[in-house]
C-alpha cells in the first residue's frame, strides 16, 4: 500500500515532552518521599523503643525499692534520664505511686511518658502500670 507522506516531519511535541518529564519528576518525588517516610518511621520506632524501656526501667526501679520507700514522694523525685531527654522531644515524665483503696498491702505504680516527634506532632504516649505488694504483710491481703 502506498501512502502519502505528510509534509510535516514526525516528532515529539513540546506537550509530550512536558508530560514525559512531569511523569519522571512525579516518580522521583514519590521515591524521595518514600525514602523520607522510611527514615521517619525508623526514627519513630527507635524513639518508641527508648520510651518503652525508660518507662519499664522506672517500674523496675520501683520494684527494687524497699516497701516503705515506695511513696508518692519518691515518685515526685523521679526525673527523665538526661540522655533520654535529649532523644525524646518535649518529653514529660510522670511517675505516680498510690495505695490501692480497698487493699492496704498493694500500691499502684503508674508511669506515663508523652513526647513529641521531630515534626512537632504528638507521639502516642507510653504508659505502664504495675501493682506491687508488701509480701511481708501477706501481699494483697
Amino acid at each position, binding site marked *: 500500500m502506498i501512502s502519502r507522506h505528510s509534509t510535516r516531519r514526525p516528532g515529539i511535541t513540546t506537550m509530550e515532552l512536558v508530560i514525559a518529564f512531569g511523569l519522571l519528576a512525579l516518580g522521583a518525588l514519590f521515591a524521595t518521599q518514600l525514602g523520607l517516610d522510611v527514615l521517619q518511621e525508623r526514627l519513630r520506632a527507635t524513639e518508641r*523503643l*527508648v520510651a518503652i524501656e525508660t518507662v519499664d526501667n522506672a517500674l523496675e526501679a520501683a520494684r527494687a525499692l524497699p516497701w516503705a520507700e515506695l511513696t508518692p514522694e519518691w515518685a515526685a523525685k523521679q526525673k527523665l534520664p538526661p540522655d533520654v531527654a535529649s532523644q525524646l522531644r518535649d518529653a514529660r515524665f510522670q511517675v505516680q505511686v498510690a495505695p490501692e483503696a480497698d487493699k492496704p498491702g498493694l500500691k499502684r505504680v503508674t508511669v506515663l511518658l508523652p513526647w513529641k516527634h521531630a515534626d512537632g506532632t504528638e507521639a502516642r504516649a507510653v504508659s505502664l502500670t504495675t501493682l506491687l505488694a508488701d*509480701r511481708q504483710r501477706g501481699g494483697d491481703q
Partner: protein
Amino acid sequence: MTLSPRRAGFSLLEAVVCMFGLGVAMAAGILLLSTTLKANRLSDQGMTLVRSRSELADQFRADVARARATPQQRDSFQRGPDCLILARDDRSAVVYQFRDGKLTRHDLGPNNATRRDYPIGGDHSTIRFEEGPLVRLKIEDRPPTGLPRSLEIAAALGGDRR
C-alpha cells in the same frame, strides 16, 4: 497519491538525541528503583534492630529477675563493664559478654552450656553493664554521621523478692 522521491527518516543527530533521551529515562528509572529498594532495606534493618533490642530487653529482665547475685567470677568469665555474671539459686548462671562488637548470652547450666548472639546494631554500637540495686545494660550508638543515641535496660536483681 504521490510519493516522495526520498523516503523520510531520522537524521544521525535525531537518532543520537533519541538514544540520549532514552538513556536519561533509563538512568532515572534505575535510580528510582534503587532508591525504593534502598528505602525498603533500611526499613527492614531498622525494624529488625528494634525487634531484636526489644527481645534482648525482655530476656535481660527475665534473667536478672531470676538471679540472686552477680559474682565476681564464673568459669573463665570475669565480671566487668563488658561482662555481667548472673548467678541463680540452682548453681546455674547466665553470663552476658560484650566482646569484639558482639553481645553473647551464655547460659551455664549444671550439665551443659548454650550460647546465643544478639545483634546490637553494628560496629558503632557498644555495650556496658552497671550494677547496684538495679542491674543495667546500656547500649550506646555513635554513628559516624548523625546524633549519638543510647538505650538503657534496667532490672531489679531478684525481681519481686524484695
